[in-house]
């Protein structure tokens, strides 16, 4: 199975992990995006929600597992066919939550166009926004290699 290793700058990334962990903890029992499934019965709605939360929790566990001993010793994280899709979904979940809770004062337009002056943001919003950008970079990296990750080495 192909494996892609990425060396990250520990000094830059390590402080963002607290933010990722904080948001991940909140998402344990809460969906990243509001659930709108129209008119369905209560049992169906509850089943739908519970299944989504279970799936979300599994994906977030894969994201957090990236930052293991290897990462803290040499800054390396690794993707393969097993974790790539769960991690890319988890990044979406955490980014949605960051936007909803921690980056409320940033407009949709500024977020979509990237027109945010990071230096003008106050802490802790600066850290949350850096986290938001970092997770987007992880997603872009995985997406570039998704087609090849399933290939045998």
């Amino acid at each position: 199975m192909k494996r892609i290793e990425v060396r990250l700058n520990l000094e830059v990334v390590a402080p963002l992990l607290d933010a990722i962990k904080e948001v991940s903890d909140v998402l344990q029992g809460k969906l990243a995006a509001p659930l709108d499934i129209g008119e369905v019965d209560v049992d169906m709605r509850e089943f739908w929600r519970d299944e989504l939360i279970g799936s979300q929790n599994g994906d977030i566990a894969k994201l957090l597992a990236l930052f293991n001993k290897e990462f803290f010793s040499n800054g390396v994280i690794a993707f393969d066919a097993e974790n790539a899709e769960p991690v890319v979904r988890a990044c979406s979940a955490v980014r949605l939550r960051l936007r909803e809770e921690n980056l409320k004062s940033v407009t949709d337009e500024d977020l979509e166009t990237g027109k945010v002056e990071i230096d003008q943001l106050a802490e802790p919003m600066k850290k949350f926004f850096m986290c938001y950008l970092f997770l987007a970079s992880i997603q872009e990296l995985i997406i570039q290699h998704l087609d090849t990750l399933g290939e045998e080495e």
Partner: protein
Amino acid sequence: MATNPHTSPVAHPETELELHGLWRVVVLNDPVNLMSYVVVVFRKVFGFDEETARKHMMEVHEQGRSVVWTGLREKAEAYTFTLHQWHLTAVIEPDEAGHR
């Protein structure tokens, strides 16, 4: 009246459509998910080629929504659930042309 033991009901897809109508899976825009991510999701969930996935993604981005699939309700719900697993905002709605 006695029933014939050698026959059994036959499913007629056109009857199902008449009874239940068509439903659309609609993806709505959000300011968070990357365009490249949305393309990947469309390709994975619906099997679209790159061009078709990109076309639907641009519709979502520019028009706020895109109808990505139309068919029976049960299947529409299954697709919508999968899109929710990928954290896209998706809803199902009746297809006006397919509802009588």
